[in-house]
């Protein structure tokens, strides 16, 4: 407190004297919501470029003011920064109210100042960015970050992809819990309610060791908000309505905080859409229904605290009916016809095929700081993921899922942060994890993923050294032990002849053979080492340089090892291989950034070399009772992926801003000297925004995005004999769709509403020109166009 007064005195005394400069300005900073005084708010006086701090009663005093304009910018943690202007002709007393908004500042800058680690290469989506995607998925939101794309199945199943890598090559950390939601399949999207999160960080660089050794693609960190310790109750409700799909989302959250440091938050959202529309037709059975809820309670002080979190995500996702096909000739028909084979009237019904997913996540974390030593945290977390996939089936099985899997994961981890030594911060921790997959019986088909148990144990240590005021070095290493015990029935022919497993893995065999199937118990043990080194340097002019190197190791996931079966939506049989080895990646990422509102940029080149990269590719054709099917098998090659992500922001005038980005990427299969499959093509965005604080914070934004045609793709096309036509037909599964450009429009205004709240209205239009297009990275590109125009209205009330 004393220091604040001294600070105020110093600020005041440093004012320069001039004529008619005897006026006094008395200010009082108050909370907009409950009128309580806000202490320690920073007041910046524009005219003199001086700083003050409000006292315990929220008051501050500026003496010896000259007549003329006084412009003050008042900021405080957790509040919206406010700029006010007064014309000074005599002594003035003013009350200045600050709003502690739920969201953080709508920053124009490319990168957030607050990084997870000083040397980390990352990009951030804050609450305001995330709210734009309130009725979309995490993958859609991340798609707006340069270098991040997504692998889609239709428009509702969106898997994030960093630098062309997805699924188990990306770690998704939700509230400090690593998500395990059967993310291995291409058509399995992460089960995260974007409305429950406050900030999402995409870490492209190598600082991921704390969370795992296998972040070959990168890491997505979903962060909760930290609340200021004060007595308050606030919340918000947001309603979003859309023309396309005739649906929307409603989300509400309520937060209670106490001065003592306790806090609590509850949040719930409901989302429903009917059939979406392409520019020319309805996408029958593409609707969805989501119910999500989360709750958190905790206590925070400098010395100790705890945080308990629980969330449930329940998704029912319709899958385009036209994408259910019988055999490779149906696929050819679909590719050639360019319109879905089923187009019906609009409906909210979600029919088969569909996915039903329920994801429960619970965690409890506690920490304690020790004087002259550091901070110890302990966390236990648990997840239960139940995935049911329904297909079009006959008879009694019509309402029975074809896939019914339950994945249980729980882990216990500790982290010790030692900060007692000057210039050096050490993080070290251990983790134990147990995972069990249960293929629930009664589906009437042999499970795509068998029963398995997985045990993990890890230890890591990471050091951060401040080399000097402007540069930092970090280095870390991690060891992981993984053991997988599975139980699976194999076709005897496959086991003995096709894959020769009887000679390679005789130890997995049991003596049980029935119906030409053999019961096996595969067991695998892996030891992994991973490491990283990072360096950062700050220059003048807000410029900084980051360099990261990382060694990452990934154990093959259960789908790569064991999957075995027919995928209707792809008309292919997918087979895992027991002989797969772990993937080892060396990755280099650098970034040159200028963090400045007037002109900022980030240039981030990367290079990844991956040994034994596991990919799924077509290897041949098998004849079944349904006709011919291509067989896709997992195999391993050496791969390299390199490219660059560039972001630019420029202030054009006071009210106009420009933002642009471009991502270039090249993926190569070094073993066969061909391009890698499913690599994102070059894409770039341009966006012009207008913002006027005086006109109810009016914001207007026009964005353009172009995705070029991917010209580098492996040619896995083949011929198949069509017995009806009595001729060989060409199955073009590899060719990529042409380039496309999309425009979107966003606008918003905010009003003061009720006594203490605010109301925000948004009107957005996506795919403004109703462009008809297909995306290479959408598995349903053979069957239907992407979405047509959508008009979206959002209403948000803060209270």
């Amino acid at each position, binding site marked *: 407190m004393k220091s604040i007064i001294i600070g105020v005195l110093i600020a005041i005394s440093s004012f320069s004297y001039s004529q008619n400069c005897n006026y006094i300005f008395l200010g009082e900073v108050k909370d907009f919501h409950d009128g309580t005084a806000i202490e320690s708010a920073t007041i910046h006086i524009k005219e003199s470029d001086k700083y003050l701090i409000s006292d315990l009663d929220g008051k501050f005093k500026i003496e010896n003011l000259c007549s003329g304009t006084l412009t003050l910018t008042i900021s405080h943690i957790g509040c919206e920064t406010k700029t006010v202007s007064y014309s000074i002709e005599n002594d003035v007393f003013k009350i200045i109210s600050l709003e502690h908004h739920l969201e953080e500042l709508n920053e124009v800058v490319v990168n957030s100042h607050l990084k997870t680690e000083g040397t980390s290469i990352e990009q951030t989506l804050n609450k305001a960015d995330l709210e734009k995607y309130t009725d979309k998925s995490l993958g859609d939101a991340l798609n707006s970050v340069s270098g991040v794309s997504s692998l889609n199945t239709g428009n509702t199943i969106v898997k994030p992809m960093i630098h062309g890598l997805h699924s188990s090559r990306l770690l998704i950390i939700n509230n400090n819990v690593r998500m395990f939601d059967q993310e291995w399949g291409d058509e399995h999207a992460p089960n995260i309610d974007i409305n429950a999160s406050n900030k999402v960080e995409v870490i492209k660089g190598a600082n991921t060791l704390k969370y795992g050794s296998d972040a070959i693609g990168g890491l997505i960190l979903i962060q909760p908000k930290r609340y200021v310790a004060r007595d308050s109750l606030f919340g918000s409700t947001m309603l979003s309505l859309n023309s396309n799909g005739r649906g929307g989302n409603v989300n509400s959250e309520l937060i209670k905080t106490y001065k003592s440091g306790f806090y609590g938050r509850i949040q719930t959202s409901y989302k429903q859409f009917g059939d979406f529309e392409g520019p020319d037709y309805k996408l029958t059975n593409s609707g969805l229904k989501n119910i999500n809820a989360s709750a958190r309670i905790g206590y925070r002080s400098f010395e100790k605290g705890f945080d308990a979190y629980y969330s449930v995500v329940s998704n029912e996702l319709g899958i385009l009916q036209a994408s259910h096909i019988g055999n490779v000739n149906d696929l050819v028909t679909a590719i050639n016809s360019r319109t879905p*084979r089923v187009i019906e009237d609009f409906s909210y019904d979600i029919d088969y095929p569909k996915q039903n997913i329920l994801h429960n996540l619970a965690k409890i974390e506690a920490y304690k700081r020790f004087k002259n030593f550091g901070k110890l945290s302990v966390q236990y977390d648990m997840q239960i993921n139940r995935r049911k996939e329904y297909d079009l089936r006959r*008879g009694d099985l019509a309402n029975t899922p074809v896939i019914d899997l339950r994945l249980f994961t729980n882990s216990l981890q500790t982290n010790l942060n030692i900060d007692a030594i000057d210039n050096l911060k050490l993080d070290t921790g251990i983790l134990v994890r147990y995972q069990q997959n*249960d*293929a629930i019986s009664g589906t*009437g088909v*042999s499970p795509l993923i068998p029963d398995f148990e997985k045990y993990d144990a890890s230890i890591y240590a990471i050091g951060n050294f401040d080399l000097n005021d402007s540069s930092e070095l970090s280095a870390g290493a991690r060891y992981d032990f993984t053991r997988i015990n599975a139980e699976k029935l194999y076709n005897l*022919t496959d086991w003995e002849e096709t894959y020769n497993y009887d000679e390679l893995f005789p130890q997995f065999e049991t003596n049980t053979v029935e119906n030409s199937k053999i019961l096996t118990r595969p067991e695998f043990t892996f030891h992994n080492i991973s490491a990283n080194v990072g360096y950062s340097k700050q220059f003048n002019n807000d410029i900084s340089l980051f360099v990261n190197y990382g060694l990452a190791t990934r154990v093959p996931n259960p789908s790569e090892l064991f999957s075995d079966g027919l995928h209707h939506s792809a008309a292919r049989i997918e087979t895992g291989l027991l002989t797969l080895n772990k993937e080892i990646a060396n990755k280099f990422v650098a970034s040159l950034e200028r963090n400045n509102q007037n002109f900022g940029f980030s240039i981030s080149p990367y290079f990844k070399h991956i040994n034994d990269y596991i990919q799924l590719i077509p290897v041949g054709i098998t004849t*079944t009772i*349904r*006709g011919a099917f291509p067989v896709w098998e997992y195999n391993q090659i050496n791969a390299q992926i390199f490219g660059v992500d560039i972001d630019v922001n420029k202030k054009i005038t006071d009210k106009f801003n420009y933002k642009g980005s471009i991502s270039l990427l090249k993926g190569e299969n070094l073993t066969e000297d061909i391009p890698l499959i499913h690599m994102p093509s070059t894409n770039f965005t341009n966006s012009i925004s207008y913002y006027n604080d005086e006109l109810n914070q009016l914001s207007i934004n026009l964005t353009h995005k172009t995705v070029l045609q991917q010209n580098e793709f492996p040619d896995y096309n083949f011929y198949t004999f069509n017995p009806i036509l009595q001729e060989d037909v060409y199955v073009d599964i590899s060719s990529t769709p042409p380039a496309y450009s999309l425009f979107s429009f966003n606008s918003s205004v905010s009003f003061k509403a009720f006594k203490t709240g605010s109301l925000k209205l948004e009107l957005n239009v996506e795919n403004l020109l109703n462009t008809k297009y297909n995306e290479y990275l959408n598995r349903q590109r053979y069957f239907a166009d992407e979405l047509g125009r959508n008009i979206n209205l959002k209403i948000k009330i803060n209270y």
Partner: protein
Amino acid sequence: MKNIKSIKAIKFLALLFVSSIAFVGCSSDDDHGDDHDHEEELITTVRYTLTNGTDVVILEFQDLDGEGGAEGTFDVSGPLTANTTYSGVIQLLNETESPADNITLEVEDEGDDHEFFYTPTISDITVSKDDLDEDGNPVGILTTLVTGGAGTGSLTIELIHEPTKPNDGTSINAGGSTDVEVTFSIEVQ
């Protein structure tokens, strides 16, 4: 004292971890060791029986281990007689069950969602469908096959799920998704 507290917390968390494993171990829908489902939906066998008095020709496709594994086998019992009218019956079986599951019955029940298509490459063979679904459209479980002159070629039998009904009689224009597609080499003499 505070240290003891945090040690207690750690112990508590460890206890949680262990007990949750135990909890999962005995939860009710865990069905370890008992979930090797039989392939209930599997069609292992397509059998098309053509009868004219004592002249019986059977076309059979059999793939007992389903998709993947060993390839299926085609078996045609003999040549068809020229200028003859056969009555045909198709049967779809799952022979991994004992007794074999007759899938044709399911197709019959959902006749409005299914249709068999018979496509011969010998131009003077005609196949007509003798049964109707609830909407009065053909299903194709019962057929009449009429041969003309001698020749060799093939007969493709398809079962289409959710075809456009009624249609022009060809599978190419019927849409839907393919549940069965088998092609037999046939000879008329």
